[in-house]
């Protein structure tokens, strides 16, 4: 059973197709980099996988279950374009809140642990409103990993992170992969993505242009994929 299976998914905004007949699947323990130019449809696809939007046609299976089911959702960790944390709450309160929502046994302990792992323990009582952009993104990372999700859906997770934070996130992702968890990420920072990815998928204007393993030339030359499979 695949960790993630996308079957003939179409998404229309009105009559405009933002995704056209997308099909691919990802096995457990794989890390797939979802690539595509601005406006290709990456975010749209990730939102469907996260159960935030329903495909117009086709369907999506996570671990053999429907994306919208509650048990599935508890297995998924998300970083989206918006950081998804509350400005009026402190870092700690934010994490405790999400730990509570995911019904983790001891919210406070988990929250404290993840603040430490993302290097935010020193500012844990500061309101998020006062955080710098990178600090917010780190908090978003903590929120996404908090409940030990089996599948990570990351939409441009490296945004605004400094070198250390990128290394940290890559480390977290590597650990997750070693533990057999699955990662799907979209990004324009190809270098960082290629270092991790075992597979790649390329979307061109809503259509899947390429899927397959990440080859060594992609690592050596991140622009390779776009040149070969992208549009003119």
């Amino acid at each position, binding site marked *: 059973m695949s960790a993630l299976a996308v079957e003939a998914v179409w998404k229309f905004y009105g009559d405009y197709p933002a995704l056209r007949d997308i099909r691919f699947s990802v096995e457990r323990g794989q890390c797939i980099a979802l690539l595509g130019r601005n406006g290709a449809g990456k975010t749209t696809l990730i*939102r469907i996988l*996260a*159960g*935030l*939007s*329903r495909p117009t046609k086709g369907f999506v299976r996570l671990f053999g279950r429907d994306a*919208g089911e*509650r*048990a599935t*959702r*508890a297995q*998924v960790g*998300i970083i*989206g*374009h*918006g*950081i*998804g*944390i*509350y*400005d*009026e*709450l402190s870092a700690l*309160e934010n994490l405790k*809140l*999400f730990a*509570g*929502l*995911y*019904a983790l046994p001891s919210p406070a302990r988990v929250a404290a642990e993840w603040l430490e792992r993302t290097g935010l323990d020193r500012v844990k009582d500061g*309101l998020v409103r006062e955080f710098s952009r990178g600090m917010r993104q780190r908090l978003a990372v903590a*929120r996404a990993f908090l409940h030990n999700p089996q599948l990570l859906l990351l939409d441009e997770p490296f945004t605004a992170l400094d070198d250390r934070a990128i290394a940290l996130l890559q480390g977290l992702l590597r650990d997750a992969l070693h533990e057999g968890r699955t990662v799907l990420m979209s990004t324009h920072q190809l270098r960082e993505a290629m270092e991790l990815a075992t597979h790649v998928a390329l979307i061109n204007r809503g259509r899947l242009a390429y899927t397959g393993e990440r080859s060594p030339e992609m690592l050596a030359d991140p622009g390779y994929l776009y040149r070969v499979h992208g549009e003119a």
Partner: protein
Amino acid sequence: MTFIRQILTVAAKDLRSEIRTKEAINASLSFALVILLLFSFAFDPTSETTREIAGGLLWLAFAFAGVLILNRSFARELQNDCLDMLNASPVPAPALFLGKALANYVLLVGIEAVCLPVFGVFYNVTWYTHLGQLVLVLLLATWGITVVGTVFSALTVNLRLREIMLPMLMYPVLIPCLMAAMRLSTVLIDGQPITGDDLAWLRLLIGFDIIFTSLAVVLIDTVLIG
């Protein structure tokens, strides 16, 4: 059990961030007070007619103040795309809805609790003769306002001109509930208990609450996830 815990978590979150910023409470409470104050000038507060419209005035103030709170309820989640994260979490949409409704309810009941005595003073009425029944009416009608308002708050989060869209859409739906509340409060403030014909209004209120709570719980998933 988890369901209830999730409701409480969501409600606590909303209350905490509202109490931090006080954006809605502030506007809502002061507006309710202004309404009561202004009308105490417009009417001769000792006259008989004032008694007759006491319930109406009170609920008008509550309905107006309520909209200011309800407007913020889902709008608050827009910042940083927090709504997405709530939707993506294993919290079922009904729990999310009920949590938010609960937070709004607490805020509204709080505002009403402040307004009632003020009202009593300005209009020189002894509103507490049938305190138990009045509180019952208040709690029931406020729940009606809250449930309908919270659904519409979810429905209108993404609209331009959301601020006037919300009252425009929700008041007509609320009319039965408000009418019952106005009628019953007038009677109670006048010092009479609820009897006879007025029981029908009470039943209407209860029926309204039940129907809209169930509808909301059923429909909220469709509203939130497109």
